């Protein structure tokens, strides 16, 4: 490279940084920087009226899994916390699996429409995706709450004598999360299926494959990146869900997100809230790293 070209490259890189700088400053101040403070807070003792007291303490990290007996200081498993973690993981996995089971046929259906109709069906998936999550969750509560539409209809038809207790259960949270996060599964699946070469189906059927074999052995391996992307896009927000479990799970069926909020409200244990937040962040980052690694490997093989 000549010195002139070298100078041009340096100038281009400098301009790249300069143009990006304002966005980076705002993101640092109002998005990333504060995360570092959360990390610091998780190593401090709680203040008497919320916030933190200055000092170093590992109690918040211990508090994720253990409770300390107030009399003799012995440690015991914090059953309440473990129940919340278990519920969060269980509901997020169930949501992801179910969203895939119904989302895959939906994405396939869209991808196999004629081009004009495809855009229309895709738009129909996009609208709920961009519709306020609160409104969508509220729509579900209207149907399943005690005086909701479903109970009213069933009571009027004399199918049930008592209103069913559907809301404020784990099932309600599961239904709600599947409903609100389903488009996040369908969109990346569609993006993968859209590029799928339909001639492969002909080849498979010519070789006497049955539809199930075609699905399992031909389609799914090829669209695996889309499956993984969709699963992560559903699993990550499910695990950190706040609005949906709050409205559909009520106070008893908390998930991690609500448990974190509790520490900053009535719980008045900001360090524990901070250590829980960092834990959630680590799990999510782990999931994303697995995805990035997998996606890179896929593209390398593909080339």
């Amino acid at each position: 490279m000549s010195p002139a070209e070298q100078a041009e490259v340096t100038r281009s890189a400098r301009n790249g940084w300069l143009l990006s700088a304002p966005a980076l400053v705002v993101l640092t101040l109002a998005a990333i920087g504060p995360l570092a403070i959360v990390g610091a807070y998780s190593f401090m003792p709680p203040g008497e009226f919320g916030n933190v007291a200055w000092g170093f303490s590992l109690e918040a990290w211990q508090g994720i899994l253990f409770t300390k007996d107030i009399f003799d200081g012995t440690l015991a498993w914090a059953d309440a916390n473990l129940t919340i973690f278990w519920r969060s993981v269980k509901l997020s996995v169930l949501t992801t699996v179910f969203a895939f089971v119904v989302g895959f046929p939906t994405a396939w259906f869209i991808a196999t429409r004629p081009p004009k109709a495809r855009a229309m069906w895709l738009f129909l998936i996009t609208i709920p995706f961009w519709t306020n999550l609160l409104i969508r969750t509220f729509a579900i509560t209207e149907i399943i709450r005690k005086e909701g539409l479903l109970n009213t209809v069933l009571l009027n038809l004399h199918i049930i004598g008592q209103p069913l207790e559907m809301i404020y259960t784990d099932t309600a949270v599961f239904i709600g999360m599947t409903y609100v996060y389903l488009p996040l599964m369908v969109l990346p699946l569609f993006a993968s299926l859209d590029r799928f070469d339909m001639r492969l189906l002909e080849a498979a059927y010519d070789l006497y494959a049955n539809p199930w074999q075609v699905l399992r052995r031909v389609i799914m391996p090829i669209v695996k990146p889309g499956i993984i992307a969709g699963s992560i896009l559903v699993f990550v927000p499910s695990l950190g869900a706040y609005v949906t479990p709050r409205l559909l799970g009520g106070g008893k069926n908390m998930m991690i997100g609500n448990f974190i909020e509790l520490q900053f409200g009535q719980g008045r244990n900001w360090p524990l809230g901070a250590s829980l937040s960092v834990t959630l962040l680590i799990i999510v980052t782990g999931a994303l790293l697995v995805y990035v690694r997998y996606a890179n490997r896929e593209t390398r093989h593909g080339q």
Partner: protein
Amino acid sequence: MANKGFVISRLPGFNPIAGLVFAGLYLPILILVVYSFNAGRSVASWEGFSLQWYAVAWENDAVKDATIRSLYLAASAAVISTVLATLAALGTTRRKAFGGQTFIYVMINQPLMVPEIVSAVALLIFFAMIKQATGYAGMGYLIAAHSAFCIPFAYLPIRARLEGMDMTLETAAADLYASTWQAFRFVTLPLLLPGIFAGMMLAFVTSLDDVVITVFVKSAGQDTLPTYMLGQIRRQVTAEINAISTVLLALTVLLLTLFFVLTRKKDE
């Protein structure tokens, strides 16, 4: 082909499932909209068509306040984040890969990756510190937070537009002795405009819809429409919420339709 009904891409059971999914996605929203026109108070019974809940919402000062605040916040955040995202998109596309480019991508997309509740908690702590130090408790916190998490939503369509653009036009402008600024102002910017509007719309919708971060960051008396609704839903449910939801829904659909019209041009 002997069997005319055979469609190669059909998989057994897939179409019915897709049909159920579309019905399942739209039915709850449809019910919500329909019952916003109910004369009665809840979904328990249909008591005839009425616009009374829209009137109730319209006359409710808390709703009016929250609406104005929401629109003001979304407009500010959309403008700020779009300006920042446009600059960043110009900085990160159409040039030789440079050191730290991946870092910039990760920074810009970070709000999409971190769980919202974690960002919300982080902002709560950070802004509590600033509040204590400065005593300022205005809308600045919400505007800063919203501007930050809207950046990736504005950035993505702008970058997509830039990458799909024909660079030879700028080279032609430069050949005709246009300065860098003139080439940008009269060639690049007009071509980029649909992408910028698309990005701004996504940013606006994203800000308008936000619940979690707003709940944690807002000071007392700074309810936006979604946080007002969240509070109401937990207390008691009236069809007023259905009416507000329907208006928000209509606004979102309108903006999305505009977005699609703006971004589709490219394919022609």
